[in-house]
C-alpha cells in the first residue's frame, strides 16, 4: 500500500481532480499534440511565448491521474518562467520518475511528488507525456508526439 500512497500523493490527486491551466489557448504561438497508444491517453499543449518567457500555457486532453496531474503541475511550473526552464526541469523530472536522479531536482518545486512513479516503470510514459509534448511544441515539431 505504501508504494501506492507514494504514487498517488494528495497533491497529485488534487491536480487530477482539478487540473490547472486546462483548456484551449487562442493566443498560442506554439502547440503540439501527444498520445500514449498503450492506454489511449491524449494531451495537447499550447504555449504563448513573449520573447523567451512563457506568458501563458494550457493543456487539454484525457488521461490517467498521473498524466493529467503531471501536465497540470508542469503548466504551473512553466507559466511566467523562461522557456529554457522546460529543458532543465524535464531532465530533472525524467531522472526523478525513472529513479536515477543525478542532478538534485532543484527546478521541480512541487513536482518532486512524482518521485513515487519510479516504483512503477510502466507509468513513466504517463508521467512524461505532457513534457514530451511541451518540448515538441517549443521545437515547433509538426509531427504528433507519441510515447511509443
Amino acid at each position: 500500500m505504501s508504494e501506492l500512497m507514494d504514487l498517488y500523493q494528495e497533491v497529485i490527486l488534487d491536480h487530477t481532480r482539478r487540473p490547472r491551466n486546462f483548456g484551449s489557448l487562442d493566443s498560442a504561438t506554439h502547440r503540439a499534440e501527444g498520445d500514449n497508444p498503450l492506454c489511449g491517453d491524449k494531451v495537447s499543449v499550447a504555449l504563448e511565448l513573449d520573447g523567451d518567457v512563457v506568458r501563458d500555457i494550457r493543456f487539454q486532453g484525457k488521461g490517467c491521474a498521473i498524466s493529467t496531474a503531471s501536465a497540470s503541475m508542469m503548466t504551473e511550473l512553466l507559466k511566467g518562467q523562461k522557456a529554457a526552464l522546460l529543458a532543465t526541469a524535464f531532465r530533472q523530472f525524467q531522472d526523478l520518475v525513472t529513479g536515477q536522479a543525478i542532478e538534485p531536482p532543484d527546478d521541480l518545486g512541487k513536482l518532486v511528488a512524482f518521485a513515487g512513479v519510479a516504483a512503477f516503470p510502466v507509468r513513466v510514459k504517463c508521467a512524461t507525456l505532457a513534457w514530451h509534448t511541451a518540448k515538441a511544441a517549443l521545437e515547433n515539431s509538426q509531427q504528433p508526439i507519441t510515447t511509443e
Partner: protein
Amino acid sequence: MRRATLPSVQPAAPPLDVDRLRRDFPILSSRAAGKPLVYLDSAASTQKPAPVIEAMNAFYREGYSNIHRGLYALSLEATEAYEEVRGKVQRFINARESREVVFVRGTTEAINLVAGTLARQRLESGDEILVSTLEHHSNIVPWQRICEEKGGVLRVAPIDDKGEVRLEAFEQALGPRTRLVAIAHVSNALGTVNPVAEMVRMAHRRGIPVLVDGAQAAPHLQLDVQALDCDFYAFSGHKVYGPTGVGVLYGKASLLEAMPPYQSGGEMIRSVSFERTSYKEIPYRFEAGTPDIVGVIGLGAALDYLGTIGLECIAAHESELLSHAAEALASVPGVRVVGQAGRKAGVLSFVVEGAHPHDVGTILDREGIAIRGGHHCAQPLMERLGLPATARASFGLYNSHAEVDRLVDGVRKVREIFGSCPS
C-alpha cells in the same frame, strides 16, 4: 457430430472442480506483489496447463523433425502427429472435413488470409465489406486496407447502448454491393455474444459469405461451424490454453478451393518450374513454409485438455462467475459495468468514477491482480461508448469466486485512494 445429437434443452453441466483444475496450471501457484496471483486477463491470453507444456516439451525431446518431406520414420511420425491435430480441430469446431482446417499464426493472420485472397479476388470498386462497431482492430484494419486497394467501402453495423449489434440494424446494413461480412462471435472489449447464426442466415439470403472472428468465443462456447453455417471461422491457439504462434482458419471447402494462394514458397506447391508452378490442394495451399509444428502439437494438447473438462461445463462455470462479478462490482459505489448485452461471455468491462482505468490497473496490480486497462484494440467501439478506455477483467476456466472477491476488494481500494470525485 457433438452438437447434432444433443437435445435442444441441455442438461445442467456439472460444476467444475476449480481447485483441482488450478493445480494443472503451474503459473497459478506463483505470487504477484507478495500475494497469490489473481489472473484476470485471459481474454488477452490464457495461461497454459501442464499437459500442454509437457506435450510440447516431449515432442521436442522425442518426436521432433520437419514434416511433409522426410523419408525417414521420425518425419513421418511428426507429420502424423501434426495432421492428427487437424482432426482434433475439426472435431473441436465440428467442421465437416479436416481439410477445411488451415493452420495459421493466429486470428490476425486468419483474417488477413481471407482479406488477401477471397476479398482481393472478389472486391471491385464500390463494393462493400460489412463489419460491426465492436470489432477488434484485427477485424477492421485488414478489410480497410483491401477496401483502399480496391476502391471498396467499409461499412459498419452499429451497436445499441447496451453494446449489442441489433439484428434489424445489421440487416439494414447489408446492401446489394456487400461482398463479405466480418463479425466477432464474442466482443473482446464488452463480452457481447453476437447472434452469429441469425446474421449468417441474413447474409446468406443475399448470397454474401460471412467470416466470424472467434478469438474470444473459442475458449468459452461450444463451437459448431456447421450449425452456425459461417463460411470462415478464425481463432487463436493462445486464447484456448494453447501456445502462441498458432491459430486456425476454418473455411468451407468450396470457398477455400476457389481461393488463390496466400503466401507462397515451399510446402504449398505441387510442382515448380520457372515457367509454371502448380499448387497443392487445400488446406496445404495456404500453409507455405515450415509451420509452427510444435505450436500445433501444443494446440492439440490444449484441445484434448478442454475435451476432458467439456466446454459446456466451462461455459456454465464462467457464466456463473461473470454474473457474480458483475453483481458484486456493480454494488461498489461509483463502479459502472460497461456493456449490458443480454448474452455475454468471459469478459467484464467496467469504469470507476474518478479513476482512470490505467490507475485502476496499477492499484490492482499492487494487490496481485492482473487486469487490463485501455481501449482493448477496439478504438472505434470506445469512441462509440464515449469512453477513452475501460478496465477489463476476463475469466478462464481456472478463475474462482474467491478471486472475484479479491477483485472487488481491490476495486474498493481504488475508491479509497481516489475518494469520490467532487466534480
